[in-house]
Each structure stands twice: as structure tokens, then as C-alpha cells.
């Protein structure tokens, strides 16, 4: 299986996990965006969050 086919299969399974069934053409169309997004999301692992409790947003009285 070449890289493109591998990518598409990964994308297809990811979409199915999220509840979507997209065509190969639709998956190819979003692949650059998903790959670029994956790099940005991966960088979150470098954030010094340790066991910091996640914020939701400002809540006050």
C-alpha cells in the first residue's frame, strides 16, 4: 500500500469513528488540511500543562 492509500485509509477510519462516511475525493480534498492540523495539534504535547485542570472559560457569580 502506498503512502497515499495509507493516508486515505487512516482518514477514512478517522471519519468513520467520528460518524461520517466520506468519499475518496472528499478525503483527498481535506488531506492537506488534516495533515497541517495534525502537526499543530501534536505541538500541544509540548505545552507545560502537567496536571493542570482544564479551563472551560471565565465563570463568575
Amino acid at each position, binding site marked *: 500500500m502506498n503512502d497515499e492509500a495509507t493516508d486515505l485509509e487512516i482518514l477514512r477510519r478517522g471519519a468513520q469513528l467520528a460518524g461520517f462516511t466520506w468519499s475518496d475525493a472528499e478525503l483527498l480534498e481535506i488531506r492537506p*488540511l488534516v495533515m497541517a492540523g495534525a502537526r499543530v495539534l501534536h505541538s500541544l504535547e509540548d*505545552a507545560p500543562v502537567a496536571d493542570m485542570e*482544564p479551563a472551560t472559560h471565565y465563570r463568575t457569580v
Partner: protein
Amino acid sequence: MTDLARMIATKAISPVEVVRAHLERIAALDGELRSYITVCDDAALTAARAAEAQLMAGGPVGPLHGVPYALKDLYDTAGIRTTGGSRILGDRVPAADATVVQRLAQAGAISLGKLNMVEFAYGPEGLNPHYGHARNPWDRAVHRMAGGSSSGSGVAVAAGLASGALGSDTGGSIRIPSSLCGITGLKPTYGRVSRAGVLPLAWSMDHAGPMTRSAADCALMLRAMAGYDAADASTSVLPVPDYSVALTGDIKGLRVGLLRGFFLDGAAPEVRATVETAARALAGAGAVVDDVNLDHMQHVAGASLAIVGSEALAYHAERLRTRAGEFDPDVARRLRAGAYVTGVHYVRGQQVRALVRDAVDGALARRDVLLAPSTPIAAPPVDARQVELGDGPSDVRAALIRFNRPFNLSGHPSCSVPCGFTAGGLPVGMQFVGRPFDEATVLRAADAWQRLTDFHTRRPVLG
């Protein structure tokens, strides 16, 4: 708005004349500018006649009595279609007004119509293939971006097709078009203004706010809009002050932190120089200006992508399954990309949100406001894809939202004001950021700046 409200209240001018003048200007100019999706001619004139009759009868009037404004087309309006800038909702007619629309009506404001926007507010360039790309009014020769997603709001206010407007801001969508169109726009604190009846992009990042020609106008609108709303659980019960009272013009001793590093270093040289000049002018007027860097800014893009990507897809999932072909293809692609954000990414994003919130709080612990460019560039051409920033090349979309997203994550209030013009005559914007629920100080700083300068009074040459 402030001047119009006073002139109408003192019967120096008729609300019917004011509304008619705006409608005539819309008819003359909006074919090219594309700032409106729906113009409510008859309803606006009917409301103006009623407002005039009420004035002549001597009854009590609200602070915005007879003043015309317009709304980004994601605020629900009873009996008037609310499209979200989409074809999918092209025939959607809400049964009730959004809370904010009700409040502005109670204050006496008159709606001229619904404004163009990026489809479902998902994009900062201000482009819309369904209703036409709103045109930045500052360049007649080159079709430039108005900025988004509240593109029509920016254009309509800048071009005099509305005296004020409502926008919404999830990653800069009030401040970006305000910066690119040379107007004043306020993203209030998260929880200050109700989002009930406003189509969401990402619930935890969405802010509703005013876009006007001056900080004084923003103060007037915000007072009418803000406050607790049982229909929006995120709203605060903190009392709403009279923001206009805070506009003293005095900034002697005001502590201003100039955001360097991620912000000024990332701005294009002309924008950076303009904001630095503004900081020196503030210092010259008595403000105490120092430099500050915010930590963790390199993680903002990932956190925003995780949060907005997930929330936006969750909201649009069913439409994406059944009506995908009717979306703007660019918006559909971005929504689909949200399917690859995991639960862990989302929680990491929320953890980074806590980091960013603490960093901004820390910078404001010994300062009253922070100051940064609103956008790193002035309005680019509509077909621009890459731009050159102070620290290298950037995708235009990432560039436009770069300085705004931190404060959507953190929820702090931020007001964009014009601070100069490029050599080519395009407006440059800078933002004042304040402590949570301290819009009064943010507006005081913005208003004081506007008393020192005339950038906010300049208008594009049209017609």
C-alpha cells in the same frame, strides 16, 4: 451613534430622516460593497415613524431612541430571515429575536437589516461565495478583504451604511474587520453579553459585541446589550456599569503593557512601527507604558484548533451529513478537518486555555490594559493566500487571527481601534485588552486614544 442619539433626543433631527438617509446610501453603494444580505426598508421606516411619534408625544425614550444600526446575519430576528451567511439557512425565519436584539430594541435602536458574513462565521478573510464578498471600502482600485467573519459589519460601519453594528468574535471576528476597515470594535468579556439567539460557531469561544465608529459609541451600545440572561448560562450577574461615565479622557498614570515578542515581532514592519508610535503617543499623554511578553503563545494555535474544530463540527455534524454540497466548499473542508481532533486534543486545548488565561491575568496584575496590534497586516487583496509578517511568511488566514485568538481562549475583553494608516492609505488597528469584566477601563483607554487622534474620524471616499 452618540451624536445621532443626542440629536434625535433633542429633536434636532428626525429619526425618519436619519433612517431614510441610511437606506438611500445603502441603495446607492451596497451593490458594490455587498455589506448587507437583507435590507429591511419598510420595517425600518415604520419603526422610525413610530419613534418620531413617540418623541413628539413627549414620552420617555431609550438611550438609542431612533438610532439605526444593523446586525450580522447570525443574530435571530423575529420574522426576518437569519441565514448565518449560508444558503442552507437561506429561508430560515426565526420566531423570536435574540436577547441582544430585544435589548437594543428596548433601548430604542432601529434595525436597518442583516449584514453579510463568512458562512457560519468560520473564517477571518470576510469572503462569502453565496452573497458576494464584502468589499473593503478603503481601496476602490483593488478588491481587498474586509476581514471576517463580521465582514458586512465592518464595511457597513466604515462606509456609513449603518451608524453601528453587531458582530460576533470567536477568533477575532469583531476585531479583524474592525482593524481592516478602520472602525472600533469591542469583544467583551466572555459572559458579559448574552449569546442566546445567536448562531454559534464554537460555544466556549463565541462573544457577541458592538462594532462602531468610536469607543464612545461602543460604550453606548454595550450598556444596552450587556447583562445577565437566563437564556444563556454563561452570562454573569455582575451589574452593568454606565460605561460612558468611565470615558473621562484622562489616561495619566494608566498602566499600559505593550505586548512584544509574539505580537509586535510578528507584525509586518509598517504595522509594528504604527503601533509603537501609538504607544509613544500614549506615554506622551501621561500613560505609563512598559514592555511585556506573554508566555505560551506558541500553543494558542493548537488549542484554538482543538476547541473550535471540535465544537464547530459538533454543531454542524447533521448538516454536514445531509447537505454537505450546499456549504461553501472551503467551510466544509474546515468543518470536516475537525473530525480528526481527538478528545485528548480537546482537553489539552482546555489546559492550554488555563495557561493562557493565567498568563494574561499575570500581565494584567500590575497593569490596567495591554496593547497589541489587532492584525499583523492591513487589508490584503481578496485573492491573497500568503503574506509576509515580521517573523516570516504566513498563510493569510493564520496571520489574520494570530493576535486575536489568545483573548478568545482567555475570555478577556479587547477593543480594536484605528491607530494609523499605511503608506497606501489602508487602516491599521491596535487592541486594548483588559481585565475580565473591566470593559470600562478598556473603553476609557480606547476613548482617550481617540481624543488624542483623528484616525477614527476618517472615512473612505465613496460614491
